[in-house]
């Protein structure tokens, strides 16, 4: 009965290989605009009548729309049940495999990988094609997209200024310490970082296994990746816990239901990979070329890479209200259901000013922390601002981003957006989505008008900023290692990055309500170019309208007083 419009639901998103960069910057024609107008209007007209009954009646329930299903008592939720018994699902007991008995030399990760590959003899080739291994888009044409390529970020800027060993602590491999790393050697892949279930596994510089890790024990207790495996790197994006994303930090490891209904053991008790499903070691999720799935098509999770959606589990009409369900055409689920990010008690980095880095006290590096323990100044990083419970920035987004490379000339506008959302109100594939906007100030070449990749991590005397605290040599060295031209003149430029918020989904009762957007104090005040009921109104019509009402009132009062006056006079006259 509820026939909401499913436009674009069947639209195929372009796969990476058929997704040229032109398309990244230019949204294609909308699929439903090609339909004949007149017949559509007629069909709409008849449908109006059918819809109207159910619509208004159901809209009555909007206020009382309760979440479907229980919020879950620990142990009772079917999803959690499945996880409690996860250990029983494995068809192999890795403690019994001879190849994993070891002993493995301390810190010899590749030895473990070789042992893994004796049975999983296709896994090495699979991993080799993944983003987690390449740190680039697995597509030759766009391989400079990715943290291993020429992308610039607002945090530690770029790996390519000779910062490999520090950055690759999070690489799913062993030994990426410079640009000579061999991406074709399967034994350099790191199986354990994703598959360790003991929590004892740790990685050091260049991604090498920490020598203290009991490799044989860890190898014998491998399994399906849990939150801690993914979080080990993804919670630490930007260099440390809670820095980059805002909706991913260590608080999720053991969170209350209020912070994340899906990951919380009080809630669904899910793991990351329940949504980010995997096929041949390719993990579902949008990337530099693969757009986020905006259509909320009720495909099952993992049907297609990048196509996990809320609707996969929650269906097309999760609310008890026609009006609410219909919002999905223009509003992503995340917009209402993630009222704020960084809700787990950990502040996320909102501002990173590299220009102040390098100051020392008595010749030594120092740092300043605020009362919550967040670093507000560090010699090696510069000035920072951290925030908790942040109200997101909202944008119309079609799931794609454009990116700036270190080799691109700076645009004229300030601040420079290192990445930018694509989408608009008029684009039927775009929806309002919540974002974290991160502001930064980083070095650039004032003559060539390009960003620079400084050398941050290195030995004393190498020019690395973190030990030598000197910008000119850090930039010069970084650009030399990267093999990029540098004029020798640098300044600092304001740079913004924008991160989609999609984790930390709150319980239904904490979702935004109508007036968060539909009011004068709308959260969407920054989104212009369309009429939003409750937020927008025509001052002219209000003026005309009140004038008409006022004139009527004046006329009524005047006429009525006239009648009373003359009647009274007549009465007196007749007396």
């Amino acid at each position, binding site marked *: 009965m509820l026939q909401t419009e499913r436009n674009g639901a069947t639209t195929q998103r372009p796969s990476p290989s058929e997704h040229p960069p032109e398309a990244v910057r230019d949204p294609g024609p909308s699929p439903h605009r090609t339909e004949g107008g007149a017949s559509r209007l007629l069909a709409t007209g008849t449908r109006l009548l059918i819809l109207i009954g159910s619509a208004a009646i159901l809209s009555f329930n909007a*206020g009382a729309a309760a979440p479907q299903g229980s919020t879950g008592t620990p142990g009772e939720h079917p999803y959690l049940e499945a996880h409690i018994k996860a250990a029983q699902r494995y068809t192999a007991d890795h403690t019994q495999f001879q190849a994993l008995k070891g002993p493995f030399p301390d810190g010899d990760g590749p030895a473990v990988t070789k042992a893994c590959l004796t049975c999983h003899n296709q896994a090495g080739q699979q991993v080799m094609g993944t983003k987690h291994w390449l740190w680039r888009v697995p597509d030759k044409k766009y391989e400079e997209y990715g943290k291993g390529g020429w992308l610039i970020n607002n945090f530690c800027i770029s790996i390519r200024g000779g910062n490999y060993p520090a950055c690759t602590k999070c690489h799913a491999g062993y030994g990426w310490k410079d640009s000579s790393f061999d991406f074709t050697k399967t034994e350099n892949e790191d199986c354990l970082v994703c598959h360790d279930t003991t929590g004892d596994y740790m990685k050091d510089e260049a991604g090498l296994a920490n020598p203290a890790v009991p490799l044989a024990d860890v190898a014998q207790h491998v399994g399906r990746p849990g939150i801690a495996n993914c979080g080990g790197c993804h919670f630490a994006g930007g260099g440390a816990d809670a820095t980059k994303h805002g909706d991913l930090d260590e608080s999720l490891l053991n969170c209350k239901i209020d912070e994340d209904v899906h990951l919380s053991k009080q809630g669904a008790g899910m793991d990351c990979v329940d949504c980010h499903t995997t096929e041949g070691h390719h993990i579902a999720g949008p990337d530099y070329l693969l757009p986020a799935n905006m259509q909320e098509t009720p495909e099952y999770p993992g049907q297609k890479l990048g196509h996990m959606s809320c609707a996969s589990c929650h269906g097309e009409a999760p609310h008890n209200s026609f009006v609410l369900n219909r919002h999905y055409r223009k509003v992503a689920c995340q917009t209402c259901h993630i009222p704020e990010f960084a809700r787990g008690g950990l502040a996320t980095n909102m501002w990173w000013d590299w220009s102040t880095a390098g100051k020392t006290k008595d010749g030594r590096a120092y740092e300043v922390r605020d009362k919550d323990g967040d670093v507000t100044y560090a010699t090696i990083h510069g000035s920072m601002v951290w925030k908790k419970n942040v109200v997101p920035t909202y944008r119309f987004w079609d799931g794609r981003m454009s990116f700036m490379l270190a080799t691109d000339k700076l645009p004229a506008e300030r601040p420079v957006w290192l990445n930018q959302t694509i989408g608009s109100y008029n684009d*039927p594939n775009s929806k309002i989505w919540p974002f974290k906007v991160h502001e930064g100030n980083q070095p650039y070449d004032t003559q060539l008008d390009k960003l620079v990749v400084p050398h941050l991590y290195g030995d004393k005397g190498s020019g690395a900023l973190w030990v030598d605290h000197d910008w000119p040599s850090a930039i010069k060295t970084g650009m030399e290692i990267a093999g990029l031209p540098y004029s020798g003149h640098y300044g600092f430029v304001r740079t913004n990055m924008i991160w989609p918020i999609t984790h930390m989904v709150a319980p239904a009762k904490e979702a935004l309500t109508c007036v968060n957007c539909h009011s004068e104090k709308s959260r969407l005040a920054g989104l212009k170019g369309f009429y939003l009921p409750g937020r927008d109104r025509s001052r002219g*019509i209000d003026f005309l309208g009140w004038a008409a*009402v006022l004139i009527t009132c004046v006329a*009524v009062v005047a006429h009525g007083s006239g009648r009373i006056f003359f009647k009274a006079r007549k009465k007196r006259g007749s007396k």
Partner: protein
Amino acid sequence: MTRVLLYKRFERFWHWTQMLLIVGLLITGFDVHGSYHILGYAQAVDFHDAFALALMVLIVFAIFWHFTTGEWKQYIPTRKFLKEMAEFYLTGIFRGAPHPVRKSRTAKLNPLQRLAYLGFKLLIIPVQVTSGLIYFFYPNLNAHGWPTWTLKVAAEVHVLGAFLLLAFLIGHVYLTTTGTTPLTNLKAMIFGWELMEEEE
């Protein structure tokens, strides 16, 4: 003088239900508009939608009633006594002059009433219903390719219509007091009966 049933049972039911619904729509509508916050946006929207649906159902019944009973003829505009009516409201009423139009069962509306109510039925109500439906179904219409400015236009027309309706309501209520006594017309609308001179 004789008592005449001027307003039949359905007519009175229709009138007063319509009154309640329109007042409800005005109160909730201006709440949605943001002129004040009594119910709050979410509840105001729900009630507004529900009242609107009820009013549309009522209108369908009223149209049916008007045509099956022939009562629609009461609203045919006429120029007869139009000038006299205007003069009555502008001057005569103050002098205590007699009402220039005599009501009868078959012609219970004076020419000014005919014009006003016909305008109400053929202009304000259709404009409000149409703009309201477009407003409500805008997301679905937009999905069918209706341009995005549709919502803005529909909303602004709807708001302007609401102001006119409010002005109409104020004038209408006031003019009910211009009967033989200030409450004569109101009583007739409630109970249906009005005292009239014998029909010839």
